[in-house]
């Protein structure tokens, strides 16, 4: 199996494939957009038994194509079970039954806190974003969280303008103090590489660079002084079968 050359796939494809690989089975609470694409890719490649759970109440959905919204008909038609929205949050998400929560972000900070609410002051916003949705409780209660977000200084900030969903708060011990049951964000996957929390400080550090991306470029795309983990590695490029499956999901177009 020959590895494709870097120009044979896009940065978003690399990001989506890297995110999909993190899902190894079990159950996944899927946010809409890139998380949904990556979760569906995982199910079509190495994790066919991955249970996809959407906040619309569909448990075990098996869409042929990633849905546009979290409530598309195909999710209900292919689900093992469809439950009410109060039930999906109370009986399924809240007790920590779901292994992985898969989230996007408008801003993420060095402690992996996520903002999807406002850019600028809350009462006089520069940009009013959609808001919380299911994210705060997904971030609190899933066994762990994977974040997928394109890396830029606007998105990767020292401190988010608004904490919509808690990563590690202000650092070590904060999740425990707040009574958040899940282990929080273990992986942040971008178009440039992969960040993980430092086991001691909880600060996001770079553990992987995607092929062709330099540490300098990743640092320039980060709003804090990004540290590289001791064992910084290059991400395995997308394999042919991963790209083929991804492109089948996106209708043949590069995402």
């Amino acid at each position: 199996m020959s590895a494709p050359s870097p120009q044979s796939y896009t940065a978003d494809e690399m990001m989506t494939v890297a995110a999909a690989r993190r899902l190894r089975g079990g159950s996944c609470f899927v946010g809409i957009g890139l998380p949904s694409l990556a979760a569906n890719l995982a199910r079509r490649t190495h994790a066919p038994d991955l249970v996809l759970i959407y906040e619309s109440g569909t448990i075990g959905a098996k869409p042929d194509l990633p849905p546009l919204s979290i409530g598309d008909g195909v999710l209900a038609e292919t689900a093992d079970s469809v439950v009410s929205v109060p039930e999906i949050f109370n009986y399924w998400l809240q007790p920590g039954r779901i292994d992985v929560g898969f989230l996007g972000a408008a801003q993420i900070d060095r402690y992996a806190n996520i903002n999807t609410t406002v850019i600028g002051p809350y009462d006089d916003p520069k940009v009013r974003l959609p808001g919380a949705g299911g994210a705060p409780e997904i971030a609190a209660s899933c066994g762990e969280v994977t974040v997928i977000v394109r890396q830029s200084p606007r998105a990767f900030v020292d401190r988010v303008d608004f904490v919509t969903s808690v990563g590690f708060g202000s650092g070590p011990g904060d999740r425990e103090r707040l009574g958040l049951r899940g282990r929080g964000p273990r992986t942040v996957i971008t178009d440039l590489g992969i960040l993980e929390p430092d086991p001691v400080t909880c600060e996001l550090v770079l553990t992987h660079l995607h092929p062709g991306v330099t540490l300098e470029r990743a640092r320039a795309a980060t709003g804090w002084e990004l540290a590289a983990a001791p064992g910084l590695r290059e991400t395995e490029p997308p394999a042919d079968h991963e790209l083929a499956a991804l492109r089948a999901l996106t209708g043949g177009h590069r995402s």
Partner: protein
Amino acid sequence: MATVIPLAEAVANLVHDGDSVALEGFTHLIPYAAGHEIIRQGRRDLTLIRMTPDLIYDQLVGMGCARRLVFSWGGNPGVGSLHRFRDAVQNHWPAPLEVEEHSHAGIANAYAAGASGLPFAVLRGYRGTDLPAHTATVKPITCPFTGEELTAVPAINPDVAIVHAQRADRHGNVQLWGITGVQKEAVLAARRSLVTVEEVVDELEPHPGAVTLPGWVITHVSEAPGGSHPSYSAGYSVRDNDFYQAWDAIARDRESFLAWMDEHVLTGEAARP
């Protein structure tokens, strides 16, 4: 027992200026026809409650019907922003819009508390986020057995709840299936309720996954075939994803928005009784 009456009459009976109104339907079964009727009837100063405002509240907000919005996710699903919502919050156009902002889990539980006749709900939520600092209706509560601190939200009990369903019988018993969202809770939490349906039938046949709302907890039922478009009614229609994508351009600009509303809601096909 619910009475089955025309939509315009039902909306006129139930929705008054200043009311708190919940139009629910989670992506699926969103009651667009009823929302458009509220716009046509020129209601003002509404408190609009909805987990996902979606295009329907973008339209109501943009047409100046709302004074306040209670919500948990205000985007165009899979597309991007709700431009009328953003314009109201950022630029106070066409009027200032107060917002009360929650998480999905918070609003879902607040409806459930409302449906349950409880003054509040308890959840593991909001903790560590900046939401409680801006949303007065989020408070800590302590478990009387373990001492653990959790979060409380007050019940939502709208003046009116409006939902769309697949069908009803002539006694106003309603049946809906597919993604059923928070509709049962919204109807049971509300003081008055309207269910628009794809069709009124003689008998409700059992259907897998169906939720039945008995007519005696509903105020009015109105026939509104296609009344969930561009959302959908499983078994009757599919989601018009193209329209959701087209809305982005329509709503981005105030003039094109007003022109679209004028043509399609105020004076078009939908406006005819």
